[in-house]
């Protein structure tokens, strides 16, 4: 069973809601990072339509960094753009068949996302500690992966890919 593609409106609304949550969760960085990974890796990517997802990822990166005021922002946004493009391409190239594959792919992309964000921010600013955000993100992949799966797949899809 190939998973159906959600409608543009649903996906964009979900992305907007996630972006608002990221902004509102600024006092709780761990939650913010998990929401950020969910938006970039699960909600924004869309096979065959990379533009909207990339813009959502870009906004997510800037919102995350803007809430913490790095010395030179932009590294997270670039990493988010790259991962969203990669994820959308993967979704078109290797369509998912079920929840398990979806969660496994999210776990792998979470690790890659953590590395890429860290490297980009290090390039853009100065070396900084890793922190525990990547760990909580990886640990909560089943949770936010399942939530994203349910949100994207519930209701009638548009059928567009």
């Amino acid at each position, binding site marked *: 069973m190939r998973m159906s593609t959600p409608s543009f409106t649903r996906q964009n609304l979900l992305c907007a809601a996630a972006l608002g949550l990221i902004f509102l969760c600024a006092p709780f960085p761990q939650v913010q990072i998990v929401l950020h990974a969910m938006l970039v890796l699960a909600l924004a990517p869309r096979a065959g339509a*990379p*533009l909207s997802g*990339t813009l959502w990822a*870009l906004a997510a990166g800037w919102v995350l960094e803007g809430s913490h005021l790095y*010395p*030179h922002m*932009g*590294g997270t*946004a*670039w990493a988010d*753009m*790259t991962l969203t*493009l990669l994820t959308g391409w993967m979704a078109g190239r290797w369509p998912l068949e079920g929840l398990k594959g979806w969660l496994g792919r999210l776990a792998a992309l979470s690790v890659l996302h953590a590395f890429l964000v860290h490297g*980009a921010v290090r*390039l*853009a*600013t*100065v070396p900084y500690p890793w922190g525990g955000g990547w760990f909580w993100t990886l640990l909560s992949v089943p949770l936010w992966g399942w939530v994203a799966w349910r949100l994207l797949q519930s209701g009638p899809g548009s059928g567009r890919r």
Partner: protein
Amino acid sequence: MALRAARWRWSRTVWQRLFLLLLWLGQGTWVLLGPNPGRHWSQLADVFSRPSQGLASRWEGWRVARREARRNLAESRAETARLEAELAQWKTRAAQEAPRLSEADEAVRLLGLKQQIPLELKAARVIFSTRPATFGGLILDRGQDLGLVDDQGVLVPEGIVGRLWSVGGTQSKVLPADAPNASVAVMLMRSRATGVLQGLGSERALIRYLSNQEVVQVGEAVLTSGLDRVFPRGLLVGYVAEVAQGDLELRVVVNLAAPLDRVRLVLLLPPQPPLEVQPPFVAPEVKPPRKRGLP
């Protein structure tokens, strides 16, 4: 090929992908610029502005150098003007002082001559010269007020000048030795042959009454013989300029030693001086005996 070109039209998808690519590249470039991205622009601006800065620096240096040179030139001109004014002042002062200095030099020399001749000599200043005229002479500023009388000998450090021809109350006239009507008893320095000097004018004179047998050389000194009782023996008269054999006597032309046309201060011998005067005795310096063994 034509099919591929047709597929690569500028469709909406291509525009989107191009926008995405530019967005991704721009964001990446922004990330790669690192912290303080303005420093790259500053460095780039520095690199591009280096030639203009060097040019401006050279231009400013040239202006400063030109200003300095102009100031130096103005200062040099002012200094030159000041020095020229000072030089003019010094020249004027030197011109004003020149006669006095010359007279002072002459007075010093006269003083030296006075110390060499152990006679009571008197000094007088030449105030006017009528020598260019026929039978002209020199007018002195002293006369009977100084006790002068006729036929007193007149001399300068270079040699004799002549004798007093006429003496007034405050002035007197000198008959120079080169006047046609002047005569001085002279003798040749080597042969000691005596004769009488008669003037020819123009500071030249002729020695009369010298025998053809005498040997006279050109350049030989001619001294006073003292026989005329105007000059004592041994005063310099002049030097032999020409020697020629005559019918009865030698024709000896003498260039007078005294510059008669440039005389300003003269010494006057006392009337009827002795035939011969001895120079004042000056004790020679006695060197201390050198001790043996000392350098």
